[in-house]
């Protein structure tokens, strides 16, 4: 019997410890390193930054840290504009996703029960195909001589080729397209559970459909709206692939800025400082998301 309690103690300790340790070493420690390097100076070397940590010299360690990179971020208004425009593009995209995703999720929730599982699978299927490939598909559609122009000109809606590729409009289309399942699925999950008798009661009492939509459906769908919006907004702020392939050179986004500081300018400390900046913007939404998600999973019966 002694042996068994010992065994139980051991598994109770080991089961959390292994993944905990993994995430600690490969998720938490790397963040601390980013923070450290964002405070050091670039060097023309491999790796291209000056190490600022010497175990023997704690005072020297703090002396060598400086906020030069962050001062640069504040002084050069490029980063300020990139931050603003990332947040703006992500916020507008999230609104567009709500507008596009809500009618789809609502239609799915009202479909006959035997079709619902199929509809959910059909929403998820594109998500399993490569993100990069799905964005690439839009390049051929949005090009000035591309398929959208060909169709619209054949129908006679436009006489000039559309010039959408390499604009912010193309970035919005790309984000809405790529993130749509992340918006639709949480919305569907809440709408599907909704009690229809509430809507019927409201109609019986003389409410207009529009009014019952805003006073009953929307408040009841709020958990889904919040989860879907965060699930889209947070990664969209740091998006790199979509603005890079569909946006023009004037489409400023912070994820793209980080990429070019790292790969083109090879300024690792500055890239780290940009990463910290991006993290500061996102820390509040990420914490809210974690709480919403933990509560959602743990609230299950």
């Amino acid at each position, binding site marked *: 019997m002694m042996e068994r309690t010992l065994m139980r103690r051991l598994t109770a300790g080991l089961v959390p410890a292994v993944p905990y340790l*993994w*995430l600690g070493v490969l998720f938490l420690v790397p963040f601390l390193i980013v923070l450290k390097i964002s405070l050091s100076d670039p060097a023309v070397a491999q790796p291209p930054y000056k190490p600022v940590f010497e175990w023997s010299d704690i005072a020297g360690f703090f002396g060598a840290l400086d906020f030069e990179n962050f001062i640069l971020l504040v002084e050069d208004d490029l980063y300020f504009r990139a931050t603003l425009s990332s947040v703006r593009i992500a916020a507008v995209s999230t609104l567009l996703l709500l507008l596009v995703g809500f009618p789809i999720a609502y239609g799915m929730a009202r479909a006959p029960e035997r079709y619902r599982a199929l509809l959910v699978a059909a929403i998820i299927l594109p998500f399993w195909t490569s993100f990069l490939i799905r964005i690439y598909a839009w390049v051929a559609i949005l090009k000035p001589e591309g398929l959208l122009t060909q169709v619209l000109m054949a129908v006679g809606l436009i006489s000039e080729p559309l010039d959408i590729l390499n604009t912010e409009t193309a970035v919005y289309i790309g984000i809405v397209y790529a993130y749509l399942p992340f918006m639709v699925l949480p919305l569907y999950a809440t709408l599907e559970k909704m009690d229809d008798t509430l809507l019927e009661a409201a109609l019986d009492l003389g409410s207009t459909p529009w009014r019952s939509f805003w006073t009953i459906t929307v408040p009841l769908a709020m958990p889904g709206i919040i989860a879907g919006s965060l699930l889209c907004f947070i990664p969209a702020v740091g998006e790199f692939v979509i603005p890079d392939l569909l946006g023009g050179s004037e489409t400023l986004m912070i994820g793209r800025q980080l990429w070019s500081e790292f790969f083109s300018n090879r300024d690792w400390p500055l890239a780290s400082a940009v990463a910290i900046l991006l993290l500061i913007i996102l820390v509040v939404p990420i914490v809210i998301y974690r709480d919403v998600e933990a509560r959602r999973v743990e609230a299950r019966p």
Partner: protein
Amino acid sequence: MNRRLSAFNVTSLVIGFAFLYLPILLLVLYSFNASRLVTVWGGFSTQWYGALFRNEALMEAAWVTLRVAFLSATLATVLGTLAALALTRYGRFPGRTLFTGMVYAPMVMPEVITGLSLLLFFVAVDFDRGFWTITLAHTTLTMCFVTVVVQSRLMTFDRSLEEAAMDLGAPPLRTFFSVTLPLIAPSIVAGFLLAFTLSMDDLVIASFNAGPGATTLPIKIYSAVRLGLSPEVNAASAILIGIVTLGVISATLLSKRSILSSRRNAH
């Protein structure tokens, strides 16, 4: 339940699904285009598929991608299942809040941050960039998705079966392998498939952590796309889409059959 589809519901479903599927269908269609111009139809041809298989650099990258995906998905499945068990079965342990944070954050964290931080970590510990750095990076990202998938299954299934086994004297490990594991197996398989696809798909994290020795398919596709549209990329994409579609359809059929048979047994 008495629900009716209005004309508005049907229209939004039709437009919504057309929007999701048309771009992918067009991409596949134009992979059979005889013309080098990706947007002008020049007749049916399978020449780009031939060109693809003769492209050794691309084939090499595809092989690396598959190996990374398999290895990282396997590691992620083990770690993610352990993490899910920790969260549901070993409720209170010190640092639980930090742990849930580390599980949920990587899923929404912009990939540029995860990629950069892992790279700086590998440089700091003097670990050569290549196959292993991509594998470790992908494991870290995808284990969180496995955790969530397995956790939601662990939350919903009937604990009394486990308790019965324990009461009858089965030790914890035996209970786990003969009762818990078979019950959560479908979610573990789903988690593995999700991890595999995410790894095969990733461009950003792989770009930061790739070394001169190991390039993945998304990195190759990305650099080809930056130079302009190429029918070979269409062909490669069409093959990937075909594999994924077949995989998802067979997984759906398998799970449907297991649901049907378990229902039949229950009656």
